[in-house]
């Protein structure tokens, strides 16, 4: 029996992929199983072998960056069957959202998505519920189990070890979804998985003022986000919009400048570990959800904070 973890390995192994491997190996250790990673991407053997640090014993690598969700489903389910995997782990990232539900059906496995903690011994898994206002503990009752892990839910600890890398080139059939213009993955930090996020709202008055937001984000190595009216007005790209109708995130640090803190906004960010709010209005509702509050003008406070971050030389 084994725990199988699927991760992407396109241009390297992202932090949320390391988290998924670490999560899988914790379960494997608890149940006396081995951790096997199956991956599609283009990363070299050394990069993949280093997943041994997070508990992977073996990495089965398919060298392809253009597999669609049905091809990936075949890859994962074939490897799961060959290795007698009773638990399959994904990161709840874009690939996980597309592939994990299919894999669950094909393996007749119960599936819990968006786990925010390790499961208990009987596979009860904690997830967010009701727009982050509560947690739900869900038990998987089937013999084979699929779990996708919410990014930033646990801190992977690197230990010793290297994994054996095995190339896999089985026929996965033809792709039925053709990518017409592939976006190059840039060095920019993807918002859904970011650990640090700097966000701003209508208080910034206009798109021309986002330089001070980006400066702070750059100094911290953070991703940028915005409130819905800012996305709707086209001041920022729509994928930066967080909240009930945008992206739900759970970074370690969420800095919000010029955002009032409406409940629909909070729904997407209230799982952040530390929230810092900068607002001119001391009565802004966001202060009630904040850990640190600054009553002040974002146009003055943001550059000051950027300077302080730079000066601290962290």
């Amino acid at each position, binding site marked *: 029996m084994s725990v199988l973890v699927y991760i992407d390995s396109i241009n390297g192994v992202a932090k949320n992929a390391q988290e998924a491997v670490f999560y899988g190996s914790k379960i494997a250790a608890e149940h006396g199983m081995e951790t096997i990673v199956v991956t599609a991407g283009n990363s070299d053997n050394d990069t993949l072998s280093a997943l041994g640090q997070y508990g992977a014993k073996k990495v089965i690598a398919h060298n392809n960056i253009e597999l669609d969700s049905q091809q990936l489903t075949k890859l994962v389910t074939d490897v799961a069957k060959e290795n007698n995997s009773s638990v399959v782990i994904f990161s709840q990232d*874009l690939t996980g959202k597309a592939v994990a539900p299919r894999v669950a059906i094909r393996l007749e496995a119960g599936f819990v998505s968006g786990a925010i903690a390790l499961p208990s011994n009987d596979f009860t898994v904690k997830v967010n519920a*009701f727009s982050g206002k509560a947690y739900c503990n869900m038990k998987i009752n089937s013999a084979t189990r699929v779990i996708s892990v919410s990014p930033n839910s646990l801190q992977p600890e690197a230990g010793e070890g290297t994994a054996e890398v095995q190339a896999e080139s089985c026929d996965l059939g033809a792709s039925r979804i053709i990518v017409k213009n592939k976006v190059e993955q840039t060095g920019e930090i993807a918002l859904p998985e970011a650990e640090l996020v700097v966000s701003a709202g209508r208080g910034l008055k206009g798109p021309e003022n986002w330089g001070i937001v980006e400066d702070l984000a750059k100094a911290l190595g953070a991703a940028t986000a915005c409130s819905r009216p800012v996305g709707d007005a086209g001041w920022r790209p729509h994928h930066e919009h967080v909240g009930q109708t945008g992206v739900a995130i759970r970074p370690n640090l969420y800095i919000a400048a010029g955002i009032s803190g409406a409940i629909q906004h909070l729904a997407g960010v209230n799982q952040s570990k530390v929230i810092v709010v900068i607002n001119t209005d001391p009565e802004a509702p966001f202060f009630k959800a904040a850990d640190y509050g600054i009553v002040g003008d974002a146009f003055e406070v943001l550059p000051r904070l950027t300077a302080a971050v730079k000066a601290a030389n962290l």
Partner: protein
Amino acid sequence: MKILVCISKSPDTTSKIGFTDNNTKFDVAGIQYIINPYDEWYALVKGIELKEANGGSVTTITVGTAADEPTIRKALAIGADEAVRIDAEATDAYFVAMQISEYAKDKAFDLILLGKETISYNGAQVGGMVAELLDTPYVSLASKLELNGTTASITREAKGGDELVEGNLPLVISAAKGMAEQRIPNMRGIMAARSKPLNVVAAVAVDALTSTVNFEMPAPKSGVKMIDPNNMDELVALLHNEEKVI
């Protein structure tokens, strides 16, 4: 063009959440239900737009009890032609996906649309499961969809930005922001919805594979600590030394 749109309900975000029976059941008292916004604003309205442009029909499908009918009527008021309610409590995503695929499997829908996730659990499970059960390609997190005959051009979220993909119908597509604009039902739509068909179909026997053990409330925030706007060094020190997040 036959379009099926999956509609589920969610408690309105402004609802106060509570539990009963020793935190094992969601307390529905005083909860205002809405159509899950991703299903309504993006999937349903897109389905209606495609019908308006290409002809055909929009059917909505909901797995739920009679208590869900007000939200189903709202979908009809927005412009769906007919609604199907699979008469059962939606126990888990697997159960729901099994019911939807069972209904859809011999009806030759060209497109099955649904929201990218519900706002209550953010699970993002049903679309992929239905696609797998029907052996159909699935494009998730789509923000744009154009049809050219039986070929669909879809813009979807990818790591690092949006990408354009193509596939042939039939397809299952999950809709995110950008797909369409919210439509507010008008009086005529609301009147028309009363006489549109809402077919109640018996559920097939399926055992859910997961169960809810209980709910928990997050620990209350210990209260906000105010920082002098002139002292950002203090904030940086707190975030670094106390919180250890930077």
